[in-house]
């Protein structure tokens, strides 16, 4: 009590008492120093978002290939560009959080020429198709068939993401803090993908569809970005893997 009574009395509209000045300077210094240290500690502890990114430096890409729209629009490239060789399979999306299904619905199995900007993350290739009318051109000529290789039935553990953000449209493009963004992408028609914790035939990234190879129902949005296990059949189409899932097998882990 007596110690407290000896404390210099501070009144805001009067000069700070001499006895308090050193204390306040020390507290201010500790606060600023503490905040600086925490900024460094928290700032350097951010997770690695991976190498996925828009390949703006490549410029607009123009590629030709066979278009598939089930379960989600893909392009199997037959005539590529300097950066996208023939034989690659591209996940397709529109500008922003949009898919391209409405624009390519009548072009399933056709030879098309697409123009847009590429996204790349490891072995994942994606194309953000431009908004203008010339970005999607149906071509005459036969589209070569794509080899489909069934790889059997699998139970996989991992995370459902949207293919565009995962490919590098956002960094990080996965995880629970990205969930709302992923849902918006999926609602907009961007292909959902499954990132498995264990690879299948060397691949840990799968385009998803339902057990019949159709788009996933909206209920899937409740399980995006959550660690889950799913059963279904896996097949290789061109150089991309498709996971046709049995949604009744979904378990949150």
């Amino acid at each position, binding site marked *: 009590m007596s110690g*407290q009574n000896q404390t210099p009395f501070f009144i805001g509209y009067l000069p700070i008492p001499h006895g308090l000045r050193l204390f306040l300077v020390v507290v201010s210094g500790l606060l*600023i120093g503490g905040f*600086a240290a925490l900024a460094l*500690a928290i*700032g350097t502890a951010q997770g690695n978002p991976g190498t996925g990114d828009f390949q703006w430096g490549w410029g607009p890409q123009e590629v030709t290939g066979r278009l598939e729209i089930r379960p989600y629009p893909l392009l199997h490239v037959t005539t590529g560009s300097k950066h996208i060789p023939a034989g690659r399979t591209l996940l397709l999306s529109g500008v922003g959080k949009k898919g391209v299904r409405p624009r390519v619905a009548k072009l399933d199995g056709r030879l098309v020429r697409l123009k847009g900007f590429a996204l790349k993350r490891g072995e994942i290739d994606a194309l953000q198709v431009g908004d203008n009318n010339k970005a999607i051109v149906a071509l005459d000529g036969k589209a070569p068939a794509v080899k489909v290789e069934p790889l059997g039935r699998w139970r996989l553990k991992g995370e459902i993401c949207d293919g565009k953000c995962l490919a590098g449209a*956002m960094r990080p493009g996965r995880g629970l*803090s990205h969930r709302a963004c992923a849902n*918006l992408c999926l609602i907009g028609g961007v292909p959902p993908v499954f990132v498995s914790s264990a690879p299948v035939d060397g691949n840990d990234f799968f385009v998803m569809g339902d057990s019949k190879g159709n788009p996933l129902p909206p209920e899937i949005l409740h*399980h995006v970005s*959550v660690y889950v296990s799913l059963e279904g059949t896996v097949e290789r189409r061109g150089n991309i893997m498709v996971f046709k899932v049995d949604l009744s097998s979904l378990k949150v882990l």
Partner: protein
Amino acid sequence: MSVKYSPVQWTQSKLFYDAIALALVVAYVLIYLRVAPTFTGGVPSADGAIVRARAFGTCAFLLLTVILCIGPLARFDRRFLPLLYNRRHLGVITCLVALTHAAYVLNWYFNFSSTPRFEALLTSNTSYGQILGFPFEAFGILALLALLVLAVSSHDFWLSFLTAPVWKLLHYAIYPAYGFLVAHIALGALQSETNATFAVVTGCSVVLVCRLHAAAAIHETRLARTATVSASQEDAWFAVGKLTDFEEGRAQIRLLDTGERVAVFLHEGHLAAIGNACAHQNGPLGEGRILDGCLTCPWHGFQYRLSDGCSPAPFTEKVPTYNLRIDGEVVLVDARMNPLGTKVDPVPLPLVTQGAGA
């Protein structure tokens, strides 16, 4: 104190306080955005908007932690009272930092969609029935709304308009705001982090805030227990203490059975009792000092005459006075407070006691 209206009554202390608060924010954000990346050894960084959202979000959380620690610290050590003095400005700065975080999130995660951003914020994730994947943004929205209400109502206009008790009650919303913010972080950012640093910082913040408040509550309860006085007779007179308990220029604070606190001061050999709650923000007048003949509140320097509980002209604030009497060695206070502005002649100490005290 001033009777002339001005939006903010700047003082040297407030300027110093705000400069330190801004220095905290600037140092934190600049180091987070500019210095930290140079220590990551070439690891790819997240998108600029996301990093900025993280910088401002974590900064707001730390500022809120500081704000919540000031109150209990000031209870234990009065040297922290200057930090309490301008805490409202720190709250407004925290709100602005949190708004910046929200703007980055809204314009990044919820942009580029055909769904309008605010609609997307509320509709893109509706999994309210699960913990993992819960729309943690909802907690962020609630925390931000609470901080906005606190910031907007922090001005003395609202304090005067709502009255101090209602205003104080409203500003207890700082606690749910902190709770919402912790839930926002725990169900959002921490679920995606692989590094434990921010989880440890968040945990330390929660432990610090909870322990300080628990310790302050225990401290206050003990004080209240020892300071509570009850009527010894059927009338309303309560024993405050012995004459020798009083020290010149200081008060004995007692909690009456009525729930009111009374501060009994000894000043220039006379005893006077007034309500302990300052009319401004319910600051503890009994912990104040007497300057220029007036009791001065330790929080914001509001002043009152001990004889009638009124602020000196031209100010108009008033606190109640209480009647006192001395019965032998014991000082008694009448629990029935006088109407505001009632003048009560201070009770002189018996000469023997004054001599002993000197």
